[in-house]
């Protein structure tokens, strides 16, 4: 080549060669990038083929209408020939309500359905804070769900109208003042309790007044005594309220205005109603307790720190089943005689504490990941401990811990099936066993477990997707 070179015309861009584009490139890079990977690909394809050919007829021959397993098998043989196998979803069709509600009275199915729908309306302002569009979509979805399900579930007209009005107001508020919706979130636990267990309407209202006492005492004293002491006094007064005033006051008001719903006992709960009740309550309460434990573990105050470390290590050191047995057997001994402490409530408390101990460690990891400079900057600006935690430290620490927190929640939700060991009717063991004990469905294996597994998967997958959405939304570090 000569020494001097000057380009006289510029080259136009050309398409890459065939092996470097489209499907061919993808196949070569992902499936056949070497002799070893080619073998693995072929083995993989063979495994998939074998699995599909083995399972597909079973799915395709599914029977949806039959009275018993034997009838199912007859239908399969009649349609697909001798020796064919087929799924018997007729069992689900006949028993689905037990998987969902357990032995909850059928005429009251509308109550858990309504509570379930409103649960999302209550979670909405928390899950989608400041996301008007998502919140509106969620509330509209809840409205549609309730309209479709409440009427077939024989809900009284008043309940349907109340739900529709409530959701219409929520939808309106979501457009103008989404923050106000948090008030519904705050009263939802009482409403949900009343819908699920029934009884006098005054029980949850008077119990919620305990929180009003707590908040009122805090607000009245915080100016003089500072946040920590006034919070402690507030909690103490609320405990007095619940221990001494709650029951008599409820009795008095109920004597005058006996409004209520039919009572449902805890042993009638079962299936996913039970799993979701325990799971959602435990998730809701374990997060704040976990945060407090994590902060306590980092505290400079020796007694607070020792108590928190002791609690966390003790709870994490024993299996959940031990705690559940404690809930069903031992807890009764520690309580005043003649207190009839509901078994579901006891289980919820122990599951909450169990999850809180794990969450505390997860959140401690998030706290430890923050650079010291963040604490110093907050201090240097004159923020006191609680404000610094709430505004600077926890938002960042919790953001770092989101994946691990959601993992803990998913684990917790699946662990609710362990309540089968204390005689509660969880969807996996409790209900399935009852169904399989039925003479008509004796010997059915795959179908109930696939059904229960699918519902668990949908719920857990939903939580996982939400956590990924939240991580994306909160990503501000632009690394």
């Amino acid at each position: 080549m000569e020494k001097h070179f000057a380009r006289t015309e510029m080259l136009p861009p050309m398409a890459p060669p065939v092996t470097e584009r489209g499907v061919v490139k993808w196949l070569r890079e992902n499936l056949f990038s070497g002799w070893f990977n080619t073998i693995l690909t072929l083995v993989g394809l063979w495994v998939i083929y074998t699995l599909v050919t083995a399972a597909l007829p079973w799915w395709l021959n599914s029977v949806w209408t039959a009275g018993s397993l034997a009838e199912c098998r007859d239908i399969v043989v009649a349609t697909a020939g001798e020796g064919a196998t087929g799924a018997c979803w007729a069992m689900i069709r006949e028993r689905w309500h037990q998987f969902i509600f357990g032995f909850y009275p059928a005429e009251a199915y509308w109550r858990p359905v309504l509570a379930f729908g409103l649960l999302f309306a209550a979670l909405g302002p928390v899950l989608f804070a400041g996301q008007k569009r998502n919140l509106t979509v969620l509330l509209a979805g809840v409205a549609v769900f309730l309209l479709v399900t409440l009427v077939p579930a024989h809900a009284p007209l008043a309940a349907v109208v109340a739900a529709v009005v409530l959701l219409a107001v929520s939808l309106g508020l979501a457009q103008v003042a989404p923050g106000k919706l948090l008030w519904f979130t705050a009263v939802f636990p009482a409403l949900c309790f009343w819908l699920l267990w029934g009884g006098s309407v005054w029980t949850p209202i008077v119990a919620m007044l305990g929180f009003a006492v707590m908040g009122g005492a805090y607000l009245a004293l915080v100016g003089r005594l500072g946040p920590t002491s006034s919070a402690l006094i507030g909690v103490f007064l609320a405990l007095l309220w619940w221990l001494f005033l709650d029951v008599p006051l409820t009795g008095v008001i109920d004597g005058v205005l006996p409004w209520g719903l039919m009572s449902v006992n805890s042993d009638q709960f079962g299936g996913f109603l039970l799993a979701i009740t325990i799971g959602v309550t435990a998730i809701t309460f374990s997060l704040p307790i976990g945060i407090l434990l994590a902060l306590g573990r980092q505290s400079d105050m020796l007694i607070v720190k020792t108590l928190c470390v002791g609690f966390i290590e003790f709870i994490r050191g024993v299996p959940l089943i031990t705690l559940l047995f404690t809930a069903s057997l031992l807890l009764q001994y520690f309580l005043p005689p003649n207190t009839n402490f509901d078994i579901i409530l006891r289980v919820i408390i122990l599951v909450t504490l169990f999850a809180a101990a794990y969450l505390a460690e997860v959140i401690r990891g998030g706290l430890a990941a923050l650079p010291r400079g963040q604490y110093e900057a907050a201090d240097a600006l004159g923020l006191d401990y609680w404000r610094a935690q709430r505004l600077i430290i926890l938002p960042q620490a919790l953001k770092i811990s989101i994946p691990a927190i959601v993992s803990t929640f998913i684990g917790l939700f699946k662990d609710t099936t362990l309540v089968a060991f204390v005689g509660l009717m969880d969807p996996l063991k409790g209900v399935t066993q009852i169904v399989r004990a039925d003479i008509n469905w004796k010997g059915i294996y795959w179908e109930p477990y696939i059904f229960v597994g699918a519902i668990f998967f949908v719920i857990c997958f939903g939580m996982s997707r939400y956590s990924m959405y939240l991580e994306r939304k909160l990503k501000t570090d632009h690394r």
Partner: protein
Amino acid sequence: MSDVAIDRSKMKVSDEVAIQIAGMNKWYGTFHVLRDINMTVNRGERIVICGPSGSGKSTLIRCINRLEEHQQGQIVVDGTELTNDLKNIDKVRSEVGMVFQHFNLFPHLTILENCTLAPIWVRKVPKKEAEETAMHFLRKVKIPEQANKYPGQLSGGQQQRVAIARSLCMRPRIMLFDEPTSALDPEMIKEVLDTMIELAEEGMTMLCVTHEMGFAQAVANRVIFMDQGQIVEQNEPKEFFNNPKSDRTKLFLSQILGH
């Protein structure tokens, strides 16, 4: 730096005492980091503290807003003595602004939120007013257009200027600078120093740990040299640089100015 034209007309030092430190000692465990520190800072003074690393200069200014605790002696800031009393500490901290080497902006908040957080929650300023103040100081440090970005989207120099604005939003009477330019590229050092010079011109009481000797010559009215946790020498900048008394100071200056 020394060739920068600086308006010293407003940089008046009053007789009023802003910070009084007397017989102060501090230990980390058994290590004696600060030994018998005595100093008085009058309102309007610009003090540069320099010294080799590990000489306790950062620790000294961190004691002034109680990010570090001293074990002996007295520190009085604006008439408030720093003791274990949390009320006093919070009072001093809200009067004293601090700028860190690594900026320490809050990454989960926008620039504007970084600046309004403390006024809203500590000073109880209404949100709107706090935002106006914040925009005022962001204009002053010449980055009002970044107000709605997050710290991670800004360059180091911009972040440090935001950090200065964030402190100023609390309307502090004293500003502490802990090596504000040590983590910056040379180009960005200038923009931060310019902001600090402007602040000095307005009469802010400033204590500044820095290795920027040009800044010290141009702005400071006193330079303090520390070594091994002690104040070795202090003097007006001209005398300090041209005519150092102690051998330790001479050695330090020859090393830092020698290249």
